[in-house]
């Protein structure tokens, strides 16, 4: 626990650190976006239409991430939080509590994303020389309503889940919903296959800057990500009439969803909150006996390692937000792997394009590792909660405790990173698969330890919700540091990758010497980050509790 007296130097350092990281990140995102657009439009000549369709696909993923994230966060804050228990004992209308929590969740879980999008779209606006008013239209009339729709839809679905859970059981509802989402996502990626889209558009080369109405599937025209990317296309092309049509759709959709959410909140929230206890009790009764003797069982592990490991396992599997979020992320990874294999076939004889696709897939892999680390490793120390006194006062070596806590996550994330490398790159040469696996293996420990270190430094033992911990200010800073690291990584690896692809496409040779050297440098950098982060953990745990 933080003492009330130790605020000055550390707080100052933190605030300065925050500003520096945010500043660096904003500048990085700004220039990255500007240069990427320039590269796609000027070097690769993919055309504005195709670029905005890619933006649409990325926005769809953003929408789903915010939407699912909001379901999980809202479940914890609206139905599990002690603050809500307290508020219900006060003369406050349930609808007011619902509205407060709705806004709180939205801003808490979307702040980082909004900050990222502000910088990204600033780069976009500057590249296309848009006016300041156009930038604000994009930001406030397009992006904010887009994110609000995602959040509101999440809350609506959560209320429906909780309402149905009393009748059909929480688990059944989640399984049903999972299947529904799976079919929806598979349909989306089948309908909007990037490979087909690229091939279709390039049939019209060089006339590829115009708007190809016929190439947009009808189903996509009803999605908010399409409205947003479409309005961007028209703003950039100076057709404000067309842009406003999409903007009005976007705003109207957001308003309708917010009204539905508030309406359902007013009608259902309190009654569903009351019945949620029953749902949890039914679930607990079913669980009884499953893990009854887990601590009593003999084990080959040493007692301290065994006991910490078993405690972690039980606290993880009994926390619904951990299990649900883990399942969702695993599902997204599977989806990524299944959809990415077709993407890698883009530009088979264009080494520039092949290189950019390969590095993009590689970036996504690292981004997934970072997301997993942020979501599950960053909260490790905070999740000990105030019950951490038991471990801190017991005779367990701090290194033993830390490694026992970290090892399952290291193994899991390492295995996932390797599987990602193999399955997302298997259509390339074996050399590239190996290089991807090697670089991922070198990066993964650095990212895991960085999240562990920062999580310990910014530990909040009072917060019980892992999702809120993983969306806190400290977590946002950590994620931005990782993103900065990725930008640097790409800056160092792009050239060797390009040379490799050029040699391969032109001369069919596999020269991986430079890539191997880069892997070694990355491994050294990762080791340095890991050691530094581990020291942060040790220092942080020595603070007064």
């Amino acid at each position, binding site marked *: 626990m933080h003492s009330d007296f130790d605020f000055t130097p550390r707080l100052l350092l933190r605030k300065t650190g925050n500003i520096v990281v945010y500043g660096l990140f904003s500048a990085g995102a700004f220039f990255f976006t500007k240069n990427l657009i320039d590269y796609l439009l000027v070097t690769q000549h993919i055309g504005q239409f195709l670029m905005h369709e890619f933006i649409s696909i990325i926005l769809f993923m953003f929408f789903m991430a915010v939407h699912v994230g909001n379901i999980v966060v809202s479940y914890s804050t609206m139905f599990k939080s002690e603050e809500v228990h307290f508020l219900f004992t006060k003369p406050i209308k349930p609808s007011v509590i619902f509205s407060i929590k709705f806004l709180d969740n939205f801003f808490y879980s979307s702040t980082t994303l909004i900050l990222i999008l502000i910088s990204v779209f600033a780069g976009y606006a500057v590249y296309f020389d848009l006016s300041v008013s156009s930038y604000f239209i994009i930001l406030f009339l397009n992006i904010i309503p887009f994110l609000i729709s995602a959040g509101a839809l999440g809350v609506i679905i959560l209320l429906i889940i909780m309402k149905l859970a009393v009748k059909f059981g929480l688990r059944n509802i989640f399984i049903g919903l999972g299947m529904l989402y799976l079919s929806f996502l598979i349909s989306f990626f089948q309908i909007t296959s990037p490979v087909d889209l690229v091939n279709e558009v390039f049939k019209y080369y060089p006339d590829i800057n115009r708007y190809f109405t016929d190439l947009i599937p009808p189903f996509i025209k009803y999605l908010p990500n399409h409205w947003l990317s479409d309005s961007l296309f028209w703003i950039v092309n100076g057709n404000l009439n067309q842009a406003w049509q999409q903007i009005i759709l976007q705003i109207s959709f957001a308003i309708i969803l917010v009204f539905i959410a508030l309406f359902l909140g007013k009608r259902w929230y309190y009654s569903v909150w009351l019945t949620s206890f029953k749902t949890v009790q039914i679930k607990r009764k079913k669980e*009884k006996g499953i893990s009854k003797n887990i601590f009593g069982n003999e084990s080959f592990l040493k007692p301290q390692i065994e006991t910490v490991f078993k405690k972690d396992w*039980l606290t993880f599997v009994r926390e619904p937000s951990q299990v649900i979020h883990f399942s969702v992320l695993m599902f997204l990874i599977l989806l990524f792997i299944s959809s990415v294999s077709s993407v890698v076939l883009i530009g088979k004889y264009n080494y520039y394009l092949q290189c950019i696709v390969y590095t993009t897939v590689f970036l996504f892999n690292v981004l997934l590792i970072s997301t997993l680390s942020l979501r599950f490793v960053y909260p490790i120390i905070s999740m000990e*909660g105030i019950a951490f*006194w038991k471990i801190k006062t017991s005779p367990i070596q701090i290194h033993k405790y830390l490694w026992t806590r970290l090892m399952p996550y290291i193994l899991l994330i390492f295995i996932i990173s390797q599987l990602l490398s193999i399955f997302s790159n298997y259509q390339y040469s074996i050399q590239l698969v190996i290089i991807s696996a090697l670089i991922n293996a070198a990066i993964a420990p650095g990212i895991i330890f960085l999240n562990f270190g920062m999580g310990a430094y910014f530990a909040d033992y009072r917060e*019980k919700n892992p999702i809120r911990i993983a969306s806190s200010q400290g977590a946002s800073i950590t994620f931005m540091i990782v993103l900065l690291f990725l930008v640097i990584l790409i800056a160092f690896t792009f050239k060797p990758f390009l040379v490799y692809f050029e040699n391969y496409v032109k001369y069919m040779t596999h020269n991986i010497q430079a890539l191997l050297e880069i892997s070694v440098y990355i491994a050294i950098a990762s080791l340095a980050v890991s050691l530094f982060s581990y020291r942060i953990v040790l220092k942080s745990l020595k603070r007064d509790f």
Partner: protein
Amino acid sequence: MLKLINLSKTFGEFTAVDNLNLQINRGDLFGFLGPNGAGKTTTIKMITGLYNISKGSILVDDIDISGNPIISKNKIGYIPDQPFLYDKLTGKEFLYFSGGLYQIAKKELKDKIDHLIDLLKIGDWLDKRTEDYSQGMRQRITIASAFLHDPELIIIDEPMVGLDPQSAVIVKQVLKQKAREGCTIFMSTHSLNVVEEICNRVGIINYGKLIYDVSIDELKQMQKEHNHNIEELFIALTQS
């Protein structure tokens, strides 16, 4: 058994514990009294390793806790003022978890848990998750977890908070029995009648300084001399 030598703790400019010197002998049941903010919990947190020591040293059975934290922690059983447990574990799981931290063999641990279940009357709800426990239930689980490894020194911060009268009686009996068995108990409390009832020595701390360190008989003598009950005497001593 426990020696505090020139012990100080500062938070920035504020001195919470100021040059504290104290020696507790084996088998003592020491009551540590003081008004709110006097430095009782800070002292306890330094003894148990939850706070860093600003100045001075702490010896547990002549072992410096800063130099040998693992050995000294093995000798201490700690019961905090707020019985925070891992919400997702049951009471029984928490006890097994605690025993594992002290590397107690499975069979021995099971026997000890069974014994403590009887002693503290915690059997009825031990298989429920601790998130469903009342304050008193949590407190009794915490007490049981502190006794598992047969500590030579028990450090207790406000043991009676949240306990119903029945539980309070049980806890007092258990503490007296532990002291009789040779265990040293360092207990911070606001319950003056508890101190009067079970302690054999009393220390009073105020503004971080130890202002009195007397036996319970001496305290009773002072009561008689000043014609005060223990509450009145405590107020008089801490205000003077």
